[in-house]
């Protein structure tokens, strides 16, 4: 399953958040979207998972406009893990993960043995199997996030959209979740905060700044000192790590670059 974002523009409250975005996620690829706060990463993903409708342009799944496909069809193919985990009324963990099975259920179809097995397997994959009957609201932030990931897995989608999925997680669980996403051999589009993690997991990276894609390419080509200075306003040392053979960034805290737009707004 591939995703194409073509000339997408999106406005929220009259402000143009995305400007003429072009982006392609090929089948089976792990594509990262990076950029400073407010650069439009989340808005772009929200357009892809249909919570926001683009004001111009189209987003296609396998060449078909996602807003013209039936909701259920899209949900069978695209699963989403977003930043916030709502806790409203007490569902237990199994009930939350079972919701991921919804797009596969027909009208009046009951949960089968197979659904329950899938729910359990997905919880096992994120290491939450022993909490099946715990109430969701009593979990910690990180545990909640892992349950939300299990829900997305239970959807058995070919495409995973992740909006900073590892936000509340400790390093062990960050790596666990991203390893999992990579091993599933699905198409992944992820907004990532941690650039070293992006360097390690992504096949391709798009860099966003002020609502535009400013650079795109393989991690090695994109994650450069120049880009970090221009887009993230930091001085950094970039090297190929001898153990991982991947790009590794070391930030130099004394080299903060002043942000011109912040200075201007004061």
């Amino acid at each position, binding site marked *: 399953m591939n995703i194409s974002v073509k000339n997408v523009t999106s406005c929220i409250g009259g402000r143009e958040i995305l400007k003429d975005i072009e982006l392609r996620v090929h089948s089976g690829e792990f594509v990262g979207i990076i950029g400073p706060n407010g650069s439009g990463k989340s808005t772009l993903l929200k357009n892809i998972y249909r919570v926001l409708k683009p004001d111009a342009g189209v987003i296609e799944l396998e060449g078909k406009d996602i807003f013209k496909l039936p909701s259920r069809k899209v*949900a069978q193919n695209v699963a989403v893990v977003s930043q916030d985990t709502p806790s*409203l009324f007490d*569902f*237990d963990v199994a009930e*939350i993960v079972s919701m*991921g099975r919804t797009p596969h259920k027909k009208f*009046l179809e009951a949960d089968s043995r197979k659904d329950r097995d899938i729910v*359990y397997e997905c919880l*096992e994959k994120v290491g939450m199997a022993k909490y*099946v009957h715990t109430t969701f609201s009593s979990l910690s932030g990180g545990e909640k996030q892992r349950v939300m990931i299990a829900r997305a897995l239970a959807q058995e989608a070919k495409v995973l959209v992740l909006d900073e999925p590892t936000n509340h997680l400790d390093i062990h669980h960050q790596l666990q979740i991203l390893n999992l996403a990579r091993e599933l051999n699905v198409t992944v589009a992820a907004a990532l905060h941690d650039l070293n993690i992006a360097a390690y997991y992504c096949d391709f990276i798009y860099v966003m700044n002020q609502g535009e894609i400013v650079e795109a390419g393989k991690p090695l080509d994109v994650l450069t000192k120049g880009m970090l200075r221009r887009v993230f306003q930091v001085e950094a040392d970039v090297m190929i790590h001898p153990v991982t053979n991947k790009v590794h960034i070391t930030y130099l805290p004394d080299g903060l670059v002043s942000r011109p737009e912040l200075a201007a707004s004061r």
Partner: protein
Amino acid sequence: MDKQLAVEKEHITVRKKVSLYTAAVLLLAVLAASMTLSIMIGPVPIHPVTVWEIALSKTLPLEAFITPDWSVAEENIVWNLRFPRVLLAIIAGAGLAVIGTAIQALVRNSLADPYILGVSSGASVGATLVILFGAFSIFGPYALVTAAFLGSLLSMILVFFLAQVGGKISTVRLLLAGIAVSMILSAVTSFIVISAPQEEGIKTAMFWMMGSLSGAKWTFIPIPAAVTLIGFLFLWSQYRSLNILLMGEEAAVTLGIRLEHFRKLLIVVTALLTGVIVSVCGSIGFVGLMVPHIVRLVMGSDHRTVLPISALVGAIFLVWADICARTVISPEEMPIGIVTALCGGPFFLWLLRRSAYSFGGEK
């Protein structure tokens, strides 16, 4: 390790909470008992066996097996007065509890009740016009019911359109529009009441507004019964979507719910259901707010269980409320709304003090 996992794997099918089946059977038994008791009690006490003998002889061709050992008066009391009344209590209780559950999911707000869309205040305007001024007399004995239903329908349509922004329903606007329309229509009702010509009518109007089952007749049963049953079955069939609705808009969209479509459908179904119930027995408060919370506390939030169990608990609660309303100041009768609030309120406050249940908010 494998063995341990296998053991845990079994757990996923076995719920620690009370199972739907057990709870349903238990509550059905309680409902049958409460129903019998309700028909037995009154100025003329009736033996429980007689209650069911009369019921069976009226519904099934059993002349060969049941020999009538009761008077015509007893038969009249049981079949024409008390049966429709207890059935109406069951219908209204079950209906209001189910609507309350669905509306709380719709607006993701634990304070919501069936009247949040202004349905009851619209009905009150229609009802008071009929009671005090004899409006809609062309409908004969159905004038009150028809006027109340028209009132609820109009207020619901008004709220529905006020809540839309660019074709989308905003739940916050829905709540606020509902409250505003309710207040306006309550003022209109009050105005109608104070400009009423006679004292007696005012009392009747008050009685109606607080909810009462005293007007129950067999002719009023079929429509509310059918509408409530269909409404319940529809909502129950949507239990997955209702669950997901509680997880928020994003989750609903990404899990394939047609959000706008589903919301509008929910509003129409719940408002029509409320309209039908309110037009027959006035706005009985508290059931729709309280019962869903009590059920969630015991059964969890999954609508597959919450909806049917709420219906049963609501029905039982209202049957008992009606028993109290008839007996406490007998031979006079109280509006049932007084009983539901007086009994339900303290219980609800007790529930509120328990920390184990979060009412859909943070703990």
